[in-house]
């Protein structure tokens, strides 16, 4: 297979794809944080976004469509020393994997979840996605897409402890969000506005640029759930990017007694310890 100078696979995205900005932001964030590649596990789904981990230096578990979060959560549980980043698209995470999204947020696994939200299905060539704007015409919704879901509001309602929105057209800002998400202890969703140059001619780079504004440049306070929930409703003329909600909450792994002695992956297997259990059946 064709590879780059660094031995990574050649990138198979369309020229100009918003994914390039996301990849740059991921590389910048991991570089800035100084996490060695062998300590990073990226778990991805299926769709153009799912290819991202292959294009950077890290451990890769490229999953099925929609199933990133269960695998990413479990990998983090058994080896908390890993920095675990789940990556997928809007169809992958909010459609096929919607139930996992709600419950991973609820359990507050200590992982970062990057959703490349281009509001359209790219790899299957232009069908409506769960976040397609109302009225957006596609090959499977000729009268226009129906009501979009609100992943930011859903994440907050479900119990995620870090909820942010980034824009693939602003790499610096996105990188800072990814860094904050990785450093946050708990489930960190970063929904990323990602222009699809091939199939979404409504939500283009220019469309987003006209609308996005940075929350940190306002006096917005991200630690009030109700205020955040209200902010999550903002979409249309003005679209906020930045951290919309952040609160330190107990993580799923943090409450597991089994992890008190260190990562499960480092624990020895001792069959004879089970003798005590066998004796209870006598």
């Amino acid at each position: 297979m064709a590879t780059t100078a660094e031995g990574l696979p050649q990138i198979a995205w369309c020229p100009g794809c918003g994914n390039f900005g996301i990849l740059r932001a991921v590389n910048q964030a991991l570089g800035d944080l100084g996490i060695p590649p062998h300590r990073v596990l990226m778990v991805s789904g299926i769709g153009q976004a799912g290819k991202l981990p292959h294009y950077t230096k890290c451990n890769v578990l490229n999953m099925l469509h929609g199933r990133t979060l269960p695998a990413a959560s479990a990998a983090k549980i058994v080896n908390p020393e890993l920095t675990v980043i789940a990556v997928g698209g809007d169809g992958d995470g909010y459609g096929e994997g919607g139930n996992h999204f709600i419950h991973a947020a609820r359990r507050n696994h200590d992982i970062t979840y990057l959703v490349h939200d281009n509001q359209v299905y790219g790899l299957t060539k232009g069908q409506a996605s769960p976040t397609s704007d109302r009225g957006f015409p596609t090959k499977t919704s000729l009268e226009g897409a129906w009501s979009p879901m609100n992943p930011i509001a859903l994440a907050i309602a479900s119990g995620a402890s870090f909820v942010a929105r980034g824009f693939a057209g602003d790499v610096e800002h996105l990188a800072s969000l990814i860094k904050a998400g990785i450093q946050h202890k708990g489930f960190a969703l970063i929904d990323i506005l990602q222009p699809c140059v091939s199939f979404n001619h409504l939500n283009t780079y220019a469309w987003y640029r006209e609308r996005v504004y940075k929350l940190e440049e306002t006096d917005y306070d991200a630690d009030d759930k109700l205020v955040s929930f209200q902010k999550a409703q903002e979409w249309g003329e003005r679209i906020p990017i930045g951290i919309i909600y952040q609160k330190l909450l107990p993580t799923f792994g943090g409450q597991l007694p089994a992890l008190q002695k260190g990562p499960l992956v480092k624990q020895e297997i001792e069959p004879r310890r089970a003798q005590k259990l066998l004796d209870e059946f006598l």
Partner: protein
Amino acid sequence: MPIEMNFMVGGEAGQGVQSVGFLLAKAFTRAGYHVFADQDYESRIRGGHNFFRVRVKDSEVRAIAEPVDVLIALNRESIELHRKELVKGEVIVFDDEKTKEASDRSSIFGVPLSRLAEEKAGNKLMSNTVALGATLGLVGFELSTLDQVLRDHFHKGELAENNVKAARAGYEYAQANFKEMHHIKPIGDGQRMLLNGNESIALGAIAAGCKFIAAYPMTPVTPIMEYMASKARDFDLVVVQPEDEIAAINMVVGAAFAGVRAMTATSGSGFCLMVEGLGLAGITETPIVAVEGQRPGPAVGLPTRTEQGDLQFMLHAHHGEFPRAVLAPATVEDAFWLTVKAFNLAERYQTPVIIMTDHHLASSYTTVNPFDLSEVTIDRGILYSGGDGEYKRHRLTKSGVSPRAFPGQEGVLVATDADEHDEAGHLTEDADMRAKQVQKRLRKLFGLKNDISPPRLEGSRKAETMLIGWGSTYGALHESMTILRKEGKDVNLLHFSELWPFPAEAVADVLDRACFSYVVENNATGQLARLIRAETGREVSGRILKFDGHPFTPAYIVEQAKKEGC
């Protein structure tokens, strides 16, 4: 004179049927007897009709028997429903102050269960314990053993003492008012374990070093995760109850990829949801263990009953082609040892292993000699310890098995993909690499096949009639064969507890020596017969099938075999 007694406890859900049945089984276990106990319950928490059968012998017992010697009826309906199963000289223990029993037969033992519970233990809810005591009083059981069983079961304290009082009240009432029907003396030292298939699988998993189980509650295998959860703190296990079965199996893939032994457990319809994840484990070469507890399907079917209807499903679940192992424990001991084996096979061949049980094996209790943990071996397969060039998770090898490394390992990056991938684990559409990776994965079947044990052949090497079965039917089949042989029939038994890769050569050889062969299966179509034909080209002579949701009894198999001309 050999001792054999069959007890049945019947009542509504919520009356403590399971509790009395289990304690009865435990008491006889402690007294040195062999016990086999099964339970039949409805999919409800209160009401309805449930029963629990306990068969007690002074020699090995592995199946239920239909005639009942003692019926402990916690309500009137139990008498009506089960009277026909009672043998001559039957005994019914019931509450004569609550249930007016018109019969004048001497074997009706009315005990004021509720009143005694109230008077002696201060709680009429303990009337089931009074019934337990009364039953054991009728057979002259050693009281101190019963006391000890209750104290152990209720973890001492006030609850335990009140149960002891309730049991004694029943015991003394029976001794004072009725003539002992038997006098059961303790035999041996009682050093056997009493456990069911679920518990045995859970113990096997813990002994094998399983560190992570993700499962969605579903009859009949929920007790596996519950047992492991109860030991999670002491044995450093993580038990996760996720949102659905899809999440469960994908979590298991994530945990196993990251480096621990991991498993899931579900029933047939839960497995339907897991199928996509099974193939994921296949293509990413991730070792996972999945327990599939069969119950009658399709869809919800009979949620709390038994069937062996999923064999072909487990052999073929998922699109595409990849290696898997399918094991089907025949007994409670098998359930332990095959679980240990499942983890070793999964890691040795880096592929999914399925353990098939069913409601009957999962929930039936058997006495077994304690497992010898020094016999438990742990084989984590080929692990990467450095080497030439860059690490490649899916390196092409002769055996098909590539050295495994884990994320976090210094100097190594581990990559794998649900898409077809190259040796390094990166997505590829290269036709040549695709074919090579398919062949590599399928090559693992050769090694795997050598690790699969041939079926048990019992009776004699060559017999006129061969009975053939798999999984939980072993006990009933073994006893059927014994009965038929005692009657002078030339019968042997071929029984499978490891089904895939199928040991075709060994089976063909054995089959060719029998004049007649009958599969005995708890399903409607004879799925093992179909497997045998597909893999050996041999057709069995007939099928003895049962698919009403209930397990086989030896008597039923014997009767059917005779109808077939045996």
